């Protein structure tokens, strides 16, 4: 849909915007993967690389925003063209947040340096991260293909990530109760898990944006929510 304008330069503007966003998506995806990798392997160097690379994501977001505003000013877009630009703005915002969350996870790797290592506890976080990464990848592919159905598939399954987060929350609480020496590690893992869960939410946001972009209507349905951590209680072991 981004070609065939009478004004070729308009096509060029939209293509540019779209390709910048693809670049940003790829980068954000890599930061998430690397931050989790760094956490699992306790790789401080990798974590530092993630922290540094977040600047690039931020720069891309500013770049996309600037281009979008300029395109609106120049072309006064209508209908699908306007949705293209508004969607690019929204998705860039989500991806910027994804970058921040990955950076936050990476920072926790630095904080955990020298702390007690616990593969068992990490496994749950890793598993959740794999699931979220797969969602992020799928939603970015759906954006590339302007495929509302693939995007909605991600949207519908947001609850699974929430459910996994809730069970991880419970698990980590239990570890902390069992042995107070685990508290530092578990708190950091809990925040890392929260970061990952929120990355999942951003993937769901992006799915909603893709739906709006393709269909032309705002999704009014309530998204499936299964995050019940705010009301989860775990009692002390006797």
């Amino acid at each position, binding site marked *: 849909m981004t070609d065939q304008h*009478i004004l070729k330069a308009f096509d060029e503007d939209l293509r540019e915007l779209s390709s910048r966003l693809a670049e940003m998506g790829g980068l954000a995806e890599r930061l998430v993967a690397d931050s989790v990798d760094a956490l699992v392997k306790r790789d401080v160097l990798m974590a530092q690389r993630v922290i540094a690379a977040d600047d690039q994501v931020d720069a891309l977001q500013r770049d996309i925003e600037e281009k979008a505003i300029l395109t609106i000013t120049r072309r*006064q877009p*209508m209908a699908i063209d306007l949705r293209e630009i508004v969607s690019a703005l929204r998705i860039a915002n989500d991806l910027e947040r994804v970058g921040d969350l990955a950076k936050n996870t990476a920072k926790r790797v630095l904080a955990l340096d020298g702390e007690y290592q616990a593969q068992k506890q990490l496994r749950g976080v890793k598993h959740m991260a794999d699931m979220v990464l797969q969602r992020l990848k799928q939603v970015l592919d759906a954006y590339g293909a302007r495929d509302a159905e693939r995007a909605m598939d991600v949207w519908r399954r947001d609850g699974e990530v929430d459910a996994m987060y809730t069970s991880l929350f419970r698990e980590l609480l*239990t570890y902390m109760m069992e042995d107070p020496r685990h508290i530092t590690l578990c708190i950091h893992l809990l925040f890392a898990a929260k970061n990952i869960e929120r990355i999942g939410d951003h993937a769901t946001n992006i799915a909603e944006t893709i739906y709006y972009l393709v269909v032309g209507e705002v999704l009014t349905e*309530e998204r499936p929510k299964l995050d*019940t951590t705010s009301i989860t*209680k775990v009692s002390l072991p006797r």
Partner: protein
Amino acid sequence: MDVMVHPIKTPGPASAAAAAAAPDSAKIIARSVNVYYGDKHALKDVSVDIPERAVTAFIGPSGCGKSTFLRCINRMNDTIPIARVTGEIRIDDLDIYDSSLDVVQLRARVGMVFQKPNPFPKSVYENVAYGPRIHGHARSKAELEEIVETSLKKAGLWEEVKDRLSDSGTGLSGGQQQRLCIARAIAVSPEVILMDEPCSALDPIATARIEELIDELRANYTIIIVTHSMQQAARVSQRTAFFHLGVLVEEGPTETIFTNPSDKRTLDYITGRFG
């Protein structure tokens, strides 16, 4: 270990957005209107309802039939010898193509403003007073003066010309001339005002004034505006009709036409993709 997890109740899907409002009352009803210029079939089977006290915009590429259709509504096509109109157009319950209809009376009910401001080469006062005088709307000089003042006020021109009513209308600026033409149209108390690209010869400031005026006028008049500016149509109208190759392709709430039109031809046109 006791684990209590309370599921949060998810509310059901929100009700779908309210259906786009259809025009509540149609002022003008057109059914199967065809226009031929000699052998050329310029307008093909147009049927549409134009809502009362609202602005309807006609958009489409040059030669698409939008001006032709506009000119059917006050029978301006009658002035073109080779033009032939079939079908039915009603304003309220009046069949405007009825052979017994007085076209002069019709044009008093259906005023028109053209692309180029065309004031008479007379004074500002005379430009506005002419219509009501020949239609016998004023019984006295004082009454006529009042009509002139009210019309100029409604057209947002009074403050600028009240001290120069005897100056020539052609000496005003382009934007003022156009507002003078609107005042002239209003002076005979029309119900419908047709505007054929009323701003295309004006600068952006004069255009903004006219658009502001159109927005005020719609409280009392049924307005149809033909425009080549999509932004203008989006700004001033409540409903938009898209014409292409003599066919009315799509008509609906302006918001829908410019954000999510249902016909591909409309989408291609408004997004600048027409080959």
